[in-house]
């Protein structure tokens, strides 16, 4: 940078005195803060990150392995722990799939079509983010509980929703719904519908247009949304806690089991499960960083 500036100013100085004068000004502008202030700000940020993020994460692993690897593995092999892991995986798989389909459909409708009630739909998509997860859980209790709206009918037919997998999946799906849609809407809006129109006029059916044009154009954004959705689905506590009923070995997800074990002073067990969740968070972060690279690189293609 500096080298280039010097070169310009010497070779072009006689003809054009401007560049030599502009460059130093611009350089001073870009870094107005003195060294000391910069140092303090950076130290503050790093200290904060260490105390509030890195330290707790490290402690989780330390605590989990505090009685050795054998104890750690034994804690994870406990039937209750295995049941919780399995339930969490199943719940995440189902609710993420549901949100993948609903999210893509909602984003597609919002970005590519004009219809009445569109603003309302956009607001509704954000609802799960603005409502406390506990309330989201309570809504399902009100709907499916014994005194709830569908409760009596469900009971009469022997269908278990509340305190069982269906309610856990529903609550999780509800809480994590916005991730996919939120990620896709701006992306699709920015891309417009001209490529789809081109595909249609070239004779592609609506479905093939969606598969061959719409979906590939948003694939990185979609993966990004799915990733965040999955992370939240596996980690959700509040809403699931309300609808789960905490039946041991049956309706406890990993976050719920962590709390139960912790309250029972089974620290190694609690932190062993917690370490899995923390590991998930780390993997999520890494994949997220990779995906963000792809998202940025996908941008320039949209320009004409």
């Amino acid at each position, binding site marked *: 940078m500096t080298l280039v500036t010097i070169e310009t100013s010497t070779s072009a100085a006689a003809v054009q005195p401007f560049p030599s004068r502009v460059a130093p000004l611009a350089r001073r502008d870009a870094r107005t803060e003195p060294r000391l202030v910069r140092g303090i700000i950076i130290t503050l940020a790093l200290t904060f990150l260490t105390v509030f993020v890195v330290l707790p994460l490290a402690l989780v692993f330390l605590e989990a392995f505090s009685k050795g690897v054998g104890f750690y593995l034994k804690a994870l092999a406990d039937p209750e722990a295995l049941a919780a892991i399995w339930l969490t995986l199943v719940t995440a798989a189902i609710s993420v799939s549901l949100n993948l389909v609903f999210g893509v459909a909602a984003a597609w409708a919002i970005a590519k079509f004009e219809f009445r009630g569109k603003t309302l739909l956009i607001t509704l998509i954000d609802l799960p983010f603005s409502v406390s997860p506990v309330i989201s859980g309570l809504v399902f209790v009100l709907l499916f509980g014994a005194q709830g709206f569908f409760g009596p009918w469900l009971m009469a037919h022997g269908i278990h929703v509340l305190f069982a997998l269906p309610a856990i999946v529903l609550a999780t799906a509800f809480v994590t719904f916005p991730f996919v849609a939120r990620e896709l809407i701006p992306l699709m809006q920015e891309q417009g519908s*001209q490529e789809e*129109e*081109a*595909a*249609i*006029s*070239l*004779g592609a*059916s609506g479905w093939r247009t969606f598969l061959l044009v719409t979906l590939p*154009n948003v694939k990185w954004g979609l993966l990004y949304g799915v990733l965040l959705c999955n992370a939240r689905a596996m980690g959700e506590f509040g809403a699931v806690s309300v609808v789960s009923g905490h039946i041991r070995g049956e309706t406890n997800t990993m976050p719920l089991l962590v709390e139960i074990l912790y309250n029972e002073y089974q620290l190694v067990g609690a932190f062993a499960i917690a370490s899995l969740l923390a590991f998930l968070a780390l993997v999520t972060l890494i994949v997220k960083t990779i995906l963000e690279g792809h998202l940025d690189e996908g941008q320039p293609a949209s320009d004409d």
Partner: protein
Amino acid sequence: MKDSPQVTIEVRNIVKQFGAFRALDNVDLKVANGELLALLGPSGSGKTTLLRIIAGLDWPDAGEVSFDGENALARGAGERHVGFVFQHYALFRHMTVFENVAFGLRVQPRAVRKDEAAIRARVKELLDLVQLDWLAGRYPSQLSGGQRQRIALARALAIEPRILLLDEPFGALDAKVRKELRQWLRSLHEEINVTSIFVTHDQEEALEVANRVVVMDKGRIEQIGTPGDVYDNPATAFVHSFIGESIILPVDVSEGHVKLGSRVLNVDANGASGPSKLFVRRHDMHVGPVGEGAFDGTVRRVRSFGPIQRADIALNGDGDTLVEIDAPRDRNLTAGDIVSLQPRRYRIFAGRD
């Protein structure tokens, strides 16, 4: 390719509303088979909307569209076999140039779909046609504007369209590339001879490329004619001012007399009456000795380039009105000269707005 079927397009009384706004107002148009027609009009005049309705990407509120006498509105966009070249290309960004051009062939119903070898051969042929076969492996983001435009055209031609629609094909390109592509489009059309409509807001482009020109304004067709026609015999005041540059003078017509301010001009009223506008092409204004023309004026400024000289002349007795005329180089004009002006050809259209 030489014997692609040629189709006549007929558009009757098309009306298109966007809410309360009327984007197309009773548009009537017939495009002969094998013709290259230019749709010319200012931005917002409804050109794109008309093209989209013909292609089946939009639907009219009233009116008919037929291809060779057969109702096109009964078919969806995919069944009309219309090649559409979008203003901003709309290339598939995640596909290579090759796959972009192949798209229309790959999505055909299985019964008529070509096999892979035939698809490859056809794409190669199209890329040769647009002279870009060396770009087959690139992505759209790696192409220049002019290259994207030609790939968009190749993609549209892949389905052997019965009709080709081009929406401001050169709109986003710089002047030099535009000029080259113009010639190229003209000769390409001669080669493939598909009935084509191309939209432009650039009159020079329309006049140079097309067999016939349709001039549109505010959702209506103002005039249809050959490039010569619309230039020499503009049907309306709008066409006269939009196509070619004109001197426009506000005049009043009463009892066959044409008055500019208080002066009676030595020109025919052409059937207009009341407040009107007098249109004269710059080069149609003859400069003569004082007293011989329709009005006198004082030369203010003269610039010469090439075979002509352009002069600003202030009309006498009406000092505010400055007209810009083109005179031959040998007619020696200097600032301060007092001369007379006589329109050799002119038009008077009633109305002032």
